[in-house]
């Protein structure tokens, strides 16, 4: 086994509770995004495009679909002879049964052996829940230049939102002097993106230390980083400029999808030097019919559009019948939208069959999410899932 300079550990066990029924049977990183992707495609493509070829993916919640989506990593060029993508589930023992990772730090702790076999200098800890294109190799360069013990990637957030994040206070050289996890009174607006680089030998020591602490929640933000700061480790902030979003809620998921339609979006999917890689199902090209109207939208292979679409994102194989109109919405794969259906400000779940004439969502209403449990007047099911 040859050495690797960096090993990436990708936390992909998120339940995504606030994504409601979208994560009822899939882990959050596997939620469809952007017309043809799944959320985890962003971080995996980031690794591949940054030249990191060894990625451990830590799964736990509803891993079946995610596992089969990831396979051996070939869609992200991570099917490598040495290293590559490896799925690291918490596993079941006969006597003790199984249990989930106790926290983000515990997840890495439990896989120390996996990391050790590559004798890395650095470990990159990332999360599979975020939408962003980032060249981790630049962050690693900074980390090396600073001779840091750890580097945390940060992004400027609007001040009023700062209290939702872990906030960094840095000196003039970007060295972190103070870290507040979701502070009520944030001292500034530099939020942690949950992207960490650590010197592996040092991190290993802290992980072991943390594991011994019974009261610890075994979390990077709550335990490891504060402990490192207390002990005067040199932690640096690396400021990221660009699009970054934690799609943790139905609203933010909807918003991030529609952000892609903005011509000035900082998130460029067409950059041939930073290809967003994904599993590509084989589908015929889309057909736009004689009575169709499509504007300000992204539409994927396999769609058949006979209605009108405005400011919306349509995934694989969506069919929109005559007279239907879709506005400010996200339509997940293989949904069938019946005649004269009106959809606005909604997310329509995978495989939904929306009966003729139905109206969903309204111009000034909240974001509607249509899934298997949604019903229409008198409990008639609105979502008829024909796919197995």
């Amino acid at each position, binding site marked *: 086994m040859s050495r690797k300079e960096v090993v990436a550990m990708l936390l992909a066990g998120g339940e995504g509770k606030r994504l409601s029924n979208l994560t009822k049977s899939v882990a959050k990183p596997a939620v469809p995004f952007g017309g043809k992707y799944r959320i985890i495609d962003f971080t995996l493509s980031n690794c591949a495009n940054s030249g990191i070829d060894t990625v451990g993916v830590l799964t736990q919640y509803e891993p079946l679909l995610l596992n089969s989506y990831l396979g051996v990593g070939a869609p992200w060029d991570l099917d490598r002879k040495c290293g590559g993508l490896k799925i690291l589930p918490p596993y079941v023992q006969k006597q003790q049964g199984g249990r989930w990772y106790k926290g983000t730090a515990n997840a890495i702790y439990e896989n120390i052996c996996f990391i050790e076999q590559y004798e890395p200098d650095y470990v990159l800890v990332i999360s599979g829940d975020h939408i962003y294109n980032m060249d981790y190799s630049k962050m690693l360069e900074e980390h090396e230049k600073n001779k840091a013990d750890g580097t945390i990637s940060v992004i400027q957030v609007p001040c009023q939102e700062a209290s939702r994040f872990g906030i960094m206070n840095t000196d003039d050289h970007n060295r972190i002097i103070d870290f507040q996890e979701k502070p009520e009174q944030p001292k500034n607006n530099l939020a942690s993106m949950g992207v960490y680089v650590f010197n592996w030998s040092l991190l290993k020591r802290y992980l072991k230390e943390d594991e011994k602490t019974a009261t610890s929640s075994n979390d990077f933000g709550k335990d490891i980083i504060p402990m490192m700061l207390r002990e005067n480790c040199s932690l640096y902030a690396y400021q990221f400029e660009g699009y970054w979003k934690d799609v943790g809620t139905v609203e933010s998921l909807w918003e991030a999808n529609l952000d892609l339609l903005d011509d000035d979006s900082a998130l460029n999917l067409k950059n041939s030097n930073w290809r967003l890689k994904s599993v*590509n199902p*084989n589908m015929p*090209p889309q057909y736009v019919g004689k009575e169709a109207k499509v504007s300000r939208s992204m539409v994927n292979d396999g769609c058949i559009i006979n209605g009108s679409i405005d400011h919306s994102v349509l995934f694989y194989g969506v069919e929109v019948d005559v007279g239907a109109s879709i506005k400010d919405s996200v339509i997940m794969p293989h949904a069938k939208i019946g005649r004269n259906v009106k959809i606005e400000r909604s997310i329509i779940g995978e495989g939904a069959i929306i009966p003729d004439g139905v109206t969903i969502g309204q111009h000034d209403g909240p974001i509607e999410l249509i899934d298997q449990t949604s019903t229409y007047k008198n409990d008639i099911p609105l979502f008829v899932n024909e796919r197995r």
Partner: protein
Amino acid sequence: MKNNVLGIINVTQENHELHALTARRCHASLPYGGRYRIIDFILSSMVHSKIRNIAIFTPPNYRSLFDHLGSGKDWDLEYKQEGLFIFPKNSTFDNRDDFSVLNQHIDYLEKSRQEYVLISFGSLVMNIDFQPVIKQHIQSGADVTVVYKEKEVHDVSFTDITMDDFQNITSFNETDSPYGSLDIFVMKKDKFIESIKTNANKYRSLLDVLKNCDLTCNIKGYEYDGYVQKINSIQDYYRYNMELLDPYFLNEWLLKPNEIYTKLKDEPPAKYSASSEVKNAIIANGCVVEGNVENSILFRGVHVKKGATVKNSIVMQKSQIGENAELDGAIIDKEVVIFPYEHIEGTPNNPKVVTKQKIVGEQII
């Protein structure tokens, strides 16, 4: 479950009628239907018919075909020992000489474990299940089985055949027969090898042999009643692509359970801007549509800029149609750049072809 058939696709024959589109690629790798290459159809049909050892004999200008097919993975043909094999013809061979190129690679045929061969000559667009053909061949005990169709008005390029009442083919030379051969043959591999070895000097192709043999061998027909296209000219190419805009034909290959495989790419979904107007069009991923598109087919990565109009046209991969340019009845090959305000016009019977990587018009600075 297991299939005992070796697939052979011989696309070595060139067609000068198509020269404007095939000067820098072979016929079999002509882009088709917004996303495919012509080879995808016969190849996918073979794969769905559970044939998993397939040899493609190509003309010397095979690089585009080769780049398209890669390891065969996207056609589910990546196997450790079998799978997809590509044998390019040396440029010194005669264009029509099928047998000598087969003879050159006879060791591949001899080493393969299959008992039967299914041979397809030429580049047909069809989505056919070969399993009933193979089944009929084995059950009938025929020496050769030939797939044929009942001809339609514009089917002028099929070899006419005549048959007796038991579907035995009695002649390949008849004219004005209602039946045309699709030049798809099933036979025992040993017999095929023998035929190549004994006839390589005398005849140029299997069809030649069948045409000229004394017909003591038993040749049976198998009727195919599905949709099939044989593209022999620029007009054919234009017409058959345009037919896909008719939902009937679209269904024939879009919605059949046996999908047509093609090379998969990491292209983002197509993007439509506020100013786009699109009617009756097939549009592939990676396109950006800011202008008007009507009765047209856009391949992957085409950019139709603001104010441009693409009408009754076919635009291949990564071509750019500049602001306010107008196309009507045009076939725009790959990576063409049309500058703003240019007009390109053709008719269905004489579509205007703009060749690969051409730059049309002058930049106005």
